[in-house]
């Protein structure tokens, strides 16, 4: 691109020149993604049509793609993952948005402390947080003692031993861990909204609710889109919580797709072809959801 450009350069209109500059700006990043992500993805895609174990692979057409729909455990993991997605993503993002707009208040004191505190969970190492959550929700854990003292329960309830409550514990853990993370984007996005807009609204007599829905949300739309896509992607690829909090149990009730794929790759007799095929199902699901989200949210006004 850059060699041919020399002689013609002057003839190019300004717009074309800017257009070219744009391409140059994004070339390094694009090349890196192509080599580090797309190339391995193509390889994984080819692999997904191969069946067999360990290194004894042969071409199997769509066998793996058919197999996954007959795989009861994988289907269970698919439904678990969607359960998390539907409940956790909206709750977490709304919570993050509310906290961010609270913390954006100019007159608030101890802002730095509040912000750091709320961000802490995602900086805390997974090891400690898994231990803590398991002990909090243990049969004689903190949560049960509180519920018993309040008279809501008579004996300790095994939260992690029951399918539904274990799923809910995972969702609580996810919200606890990632709300502060998403709040960071909203806080930084809010800086691009001039404070005078809020002051004007206040003078016009708008309630905090109205300001939130009429000013904050619309102006943060690009950021909200970003976090929605990221969270959808993150939840569909959820791995850590399933592995560390519940080990997928009880009876696979909380196992996620990525956890199952990992087991098929590294814990069980390796089936990389099958693992790749299941990974591509996740890819397709995320792509469809992101496409819909982009269509709805990515308009330049």
């Amino acid at each position: 691109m850059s060699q041919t450009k020399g002689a013609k350069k002057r003839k190019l209109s300004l717009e074309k020149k800017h257009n070219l500059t744009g391409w140059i700006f994004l070339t390094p990043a694009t090349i890196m993604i192509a080599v580090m992500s797309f190339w391995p993805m193509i390889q994984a895609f080819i692999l997904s049509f191969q069946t067999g174990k360990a290194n004894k692979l042969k071409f199997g057409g769509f066998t793996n793609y058919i197999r996954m729909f007959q795989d009861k455990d994988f289907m269970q993991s698919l439904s678990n993952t969607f359960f998390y997605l539907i409940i956790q993503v909206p709750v977490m993002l709304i919570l993050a948005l509310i906290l961010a707009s609270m913390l954006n208040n100019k007159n608030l004191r101890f802002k730095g402390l509040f912000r750091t505190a709320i961000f802490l969970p995602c900086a805390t190492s997974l090891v400690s947080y898994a231990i803590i959550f398991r002990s909090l929700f243990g049969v004689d854990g903190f949560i049960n003692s509180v519920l018993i003292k309040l008279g809501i329960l008579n004996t300790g309830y095994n939260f992690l031993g029951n399918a539904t409550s274990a799923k809910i514990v995972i969702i609580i853990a996810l919200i606890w861990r990632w709300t502060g993370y998403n709040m960071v984007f909203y806080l930084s996005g809010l800086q691009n909204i001039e404070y005078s807009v809020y002051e004007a609204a206040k003078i016009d007599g708008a309630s905090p609710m109205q300001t939130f829905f009429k000013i904050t949300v619309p102006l943060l739309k690009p950021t909200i889109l970003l976090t929605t896509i990221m969270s959808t992607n993150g939840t569909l690829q959820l791995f850590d919580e399933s592995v560390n909090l519940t080990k997928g149990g009880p009876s696979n009730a909380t196992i996620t797709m990525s956890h199952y794929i990992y087991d098929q790759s590294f814990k069980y007799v390796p089936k990389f072809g099958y693992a790749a095929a299941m990974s591509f199902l996740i890819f397709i699901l995320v792509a469809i959801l992101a496409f819909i989200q982009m269509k709805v949210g990515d308009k330049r006004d």
Partner: protein
Amino acid sequence: MTKTKRANALMYVVLTIVSLISVFPLYWMLISSTNKSVDVSRGTMLPGTAFFDNWKVLFENSPVPSAMWNSFKYALILTFCALLICSLAGYGFEIYHDKGKDTVMSILLLAMMVPFVATLIPLFRMFSAAKLLDTTVAFILPTISTPFLIMMFRQSARSFPHDIIEAARIDGLNEIQIFFRMFFPTMRSTYAAAMTITFMNAWNNYLWPKVIMTSDESITMPMLVANLTEGYVTDYGVLMLAVLLCSLPTVIIFFLLQKSFAEGITGAVK
């Protein structure tokens, strides 16, 4: 007036509760790191006296300083390179946007949608063939350019006023100069947020270094923590001290940067 006062009080209450819930595990880590292993597993919530013993055991048995240094080295180099490359791209995608670039952006987004487990083997093959295993380069390259960061800069460049660019062009600045002298300082809050997030992700990156790092000299803090949990006997006091040391840098970076991205900048835009 009383109404706003009540609303204000409510806000403080909510924020305090949320903060306490968020800080609890860190508090627990801190307390645990001062206790003996038995007391930790007995669920003590009070400070103990074993902190210096735990410290001694941890530093004698695990290469903490070198793991810290490695983690800092990998995370800082990665953060610097990633921010540079991705902010250039995000800026390029938005400021010079056209149909072609929007399409490229959508395609790039696809890159984050495949679980890492699937691309792990091809990536490993690539780095082992290039004889780059156990190196900083191998740690950095796979995540040096992420669709997520590019999109983050693209989304925030949307609020970057085009008049500034036009004015700068008239002043005779070239496009690269505009990026570094106008966009970069104006978008400090985005850079600060991106830096926090990228540093944190790099610091906590786990699966990839575990596969490519093959010597004791190149382990990172999260790997060191994992090593402590692998034995037949886990010393919880020592483990929690390591976990604490592993969490602190991200927290400190956040604390230092939070003003920059949350209280933003005025001057430049106005």
